[in-house]
């Protein structure tokens, strides 16, 4: 069996400018933040980011790596709005594709099923149709004679060039386990990419050992949909990764506060983003103690 373990920098080095990158998690919950920090260090830019957006989108925008965001929302949960997303939108400096969050789900599902679109009522009548002039509708071929057939939005498949998710546990074969209450759409982000399907995990164990940490149903990603696995303790930090740790609200507040000015952002970036993942972990341990994971509010 192939051992899929790789280093963070090795997987991120497979990204190229202009790629469409899907990022798992939801808002400020179980985001692959170690991978995002590695992308920041790698210098790759001109990315299209597909995300149930949180600080992943904000950090990539702050570093100028993003050409386009495909989103239904961008929020930090306990703080309603991300400062960098606000700034980029209000400056008109990025392209966006704004979709109903259910449409985003169907776009990823269509890509993973290799069909060109999936139909839904979501979007009809709303300005999502106005601001996305490429969106089309389809008429049901199963109409009753003499009655008007249903017209539905054909949500286009959203294929990805690369996908990143972060889970609680993985094995070296590439199976992934979520121990928290919600798997979100992580398996679909991996499914929507044909290759470069990257999974980071708090801990990587030997094949077969995932059942020691949770029931069979908690293994929500199979090795059929992963190309590489990276062990990243605190790999979702400062977002939540229940039950391993809650969101580090203090660091999230400081992220938002730092975005207000160039100098404060430069020092935030120098302390948490610029050096290495080891540097991030060291800074976080210094700020929040030896086990910062225990501090967060679930």
């Amino acid at each position, binding site marked *: 069996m192939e051992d899929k373990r790789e280093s963070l920098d090795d997987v991120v080095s497979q990204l190229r400018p202009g790629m469409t990158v899907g990022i798992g998690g939801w808002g400020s919950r179980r985001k692959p933040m170690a991978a995002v920090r590695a992308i920041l260090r790698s210098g790759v830019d001109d990315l299209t980011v597909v995300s149930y957006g949180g600080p992943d989108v904000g950090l990539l925008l702050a570093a100028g790596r993003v050409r386009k965001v495909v989103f239904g*929302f961008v929020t930090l949960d306990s703080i*309603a709005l991300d400062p960098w997303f606000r700034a980029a939108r*209000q400056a008109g400096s990025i392209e966006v594709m*704004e979709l109903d969050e*259910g449409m985003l789900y169907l776009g990823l599902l269509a890509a993973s099923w290799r069909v060109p679109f999936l139909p839904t009522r979501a979007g009809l*009548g709303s300005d999502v149709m*106005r601001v996305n002039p490429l969106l089309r509708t389809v008429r049901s071929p199963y109409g009753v004679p003499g009655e008007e057939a249903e017209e539905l939005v054909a949500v286009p498949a959203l294929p990805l060039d690369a996908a990143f998710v972060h889970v609680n546990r993985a094995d070296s074969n590439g199976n992934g386990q979520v121990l928290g209450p919600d798997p979100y759409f992580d398996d679909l982000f991996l499914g929507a990419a044909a290759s470069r399907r990257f999974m980071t995990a708090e801990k990587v164990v030997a094949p077969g050992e995932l059942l020691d940490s949770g029931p069979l149903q908690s293994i929500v990603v199979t090795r059929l949909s992963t190309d590489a696995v990276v062990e990243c303790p605190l790999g979702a930090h400062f977002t939540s990764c229940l039950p391993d740790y809650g969101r580090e609200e203090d660091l999230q507040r400081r992220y938002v506060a730092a975005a207000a000015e160039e100098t404060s952002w430069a020092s935030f970036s120098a302390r948490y983003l610029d050096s290495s993942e080891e540097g991030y972990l060291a800074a976080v341990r210094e700020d929040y103690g030896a086990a910062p994971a225990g501090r967060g509010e679930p």
Partner: protein
Amino acid sequence: MSGESAPTRADVRRAPTRAEVCVIACAEAFRGDGEILASPFGPIPSLGARLARLTFEPDLVLTDGEAALMVGTPPVGTPPVGALAVEAPMPYRKIFDVVWSGRRHVMMMATQIDRYGNQNISCIGDWACPRAQLVGVRGAPGNTMNHATSYWVPRHSPRSFVERVDMVCGVGSDRAREIVSPSARFHDLRVVVTNLAVLDFTGPGGEMSLRSVHPGVTPAEVQKATGFELHGCLGSEVPETRLPTPDELELLRGYLDPEGLRETELA
């Protein structure tokens, strides 16, 4: 209901506050809904849904705000544990199954809302380069086309009740009517609860109409706080939003919200 501790004695002689009237109005929005997922956004709608479940709408299904359904009805801000624990998982993926099945009634906020109930939570100004970026359309387009939708606006003003919203997220009655195919048949706008009044869409052509004013508010004041002409403000007598009963007040003050979170939302 099961497992709730007995409400502590609360002073129910004190006159109901505006926030408490709003809680009742939100609770009333869910009356008759039966066994559906009630999804209230904001403290006062959450209190309303919980109060409805503890009194006249016991079959309502409520989430814990994370990824599970609550078996009991805990006070706001209390994690569902022990006898008030969860009864079933409800991760986001499953929420869409519920949304698209129609078994849900959402009460969303609205940064802007117009006379037809078109709602905006995406951005203020031109979408291409907005003056203020907000959270995004979220699930509003899909919610409004699939199941019952109500709104909660804690600050009723001409800035929120506008002639035209800048980005239609939640679909209004005019837009739904323009859809000629049967695809809009599940569109179901119910009420808008604000700090001043309860509004519905029973006006001519599905336009917004004043259903009741909260005690101490006049129809003229509601009209003044609304950036378009509101039906039902003139002529016939406008009823007052009903007051909480002593039992409801006791549940609210003594059990569901002893800290008075409801008052901070209108402060």
